[in-house]
C-alpha cells in the first residue's frame, strides 16, 4: 500500500512543473494531472466558477492560451495533507507571467487551495480555488 503523504509530496513537484508549463502557454502537463471524470471544479481568480471535468479542462486549455513562454512560477506551500486517496495543498502561487500581446511580464500572486483524489496510481486535480493576493 502506498504512503499517501510521501507519494503526494513527490507528486507536488510534478504539480508545480505543470503550473510552470501552464503559465508558459502549455496546458498539456496540467491536463495530464487533471481528472477527466466529474465531479471537478474551479473557483477561478476572476470569479469564474467552472463545474464538471470537461468544462474544467476546456477552461484550462483556454486559460493557457493567454500566456507565452518566458513566464516564471513557483508555489509557496503553507499546508499539505494526504490520506486514503484524498490530498490537498494550500499556499501562495507566485508567478511573473508573459501575456500574449503585452510587452512587459506581469506579477501574478494567487492564494491557492487545490484538492486531489487518487485515480489508480495517480493523483488527479479535482478542485482548484484561487484568488488574487490583493483582491479589494
Amino acid at each position, binding site marked *: 500500500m502506498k504512503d499517501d503523504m510521501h507519494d503526494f509530496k513527490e507528486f507536488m513537484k510534478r504539480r508545480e512543473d505543470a503550473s510552470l508549463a501552464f503559465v508558459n502557454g502549455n496546458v498539456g502537463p496540467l491536463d495530464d494531472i487533471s481528472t477527466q471524470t466529474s465531479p471537478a471544479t474551479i473557483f477561478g481568480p476572476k*470569479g469564474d*466558477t467552472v463545474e464538471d471535468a470537461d468544462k474544467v479542462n476546456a477552461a484550462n486549455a483556454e486559460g493557457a492560451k493567454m500566456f507565452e513562454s518566458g513566464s516564471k512560477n513557483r508555489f509557496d506551500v*503553507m499546508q499539505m495533507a494526504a490520506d486514503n486517496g484524498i490530498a490537498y495543498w494550500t499556499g501562495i502561487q507566485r508567478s511573473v507571467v508573459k501575456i500574449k500581446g503585452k510587452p512587459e511580464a506581469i506579477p501574478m500572486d494567487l*492564494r491557492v487551495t487545490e484538492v486531489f483524489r487518487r485515480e489508480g496510481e495517480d493523483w488527479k486535480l479535482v478542485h482548484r480555488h484561487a484568488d488574487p493576493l490583493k483582491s479589494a
Partner: protein
Amino acid sequence: MTTENKTLIEEANIRDVIDRRIKAVRDKDIEALLSNHAPEVLLFDVVDPLQYTGVDMVRERAGKWFSSFQSPIGYEVRDLSIATGGDAAFCHYLYHVSGTLEGGVEISMWVRATVCFRRINGKWMIVHEHQSVPFNGETGKASLDLKPE
C-alpha cells in the same frame, strides 16, 4: 460495513459540521462556530490580511465580523460538495451573507468557500478555509454583487 456506507457516513458527518456552522453564524455564537476548528487552522478570508493563522486569530476575526452587524446575519449555503478520505476530507460551496451593518449599510453577497478537514482524536476538524469573492480584473475591485446561475 461497506466502503460505500463508510463514505456516506463520513459525508454526513462533514455535512453536520457545515449545518452547525450555519446555525452558529445565524446565532452569532463564536464558540459554536469554532467548535470544529483545529488549533493551527489557516484561514484565507475575504478581507485582509492575507491569512489568519491559529484559532485565536480566527476567533478575533469572527468576533469583529459578528459585531459588525446590527441585524441578524442571513447565512445560506448552496451547492455543497463533499469528498472524504481516511482522515482527510474537504468540501466546497457557495454561501450568501445578508444583513444590515452598523451604520445602516445593507449587504447581500455571495462568497466561494473551500474547507479542508483532518480527523483529529476521532473528530473532523477544520484545518484550512479558503473564502473569496469574485474579482474584476478591469477595475481591480472585488465584485460583491454577483449571483450564482
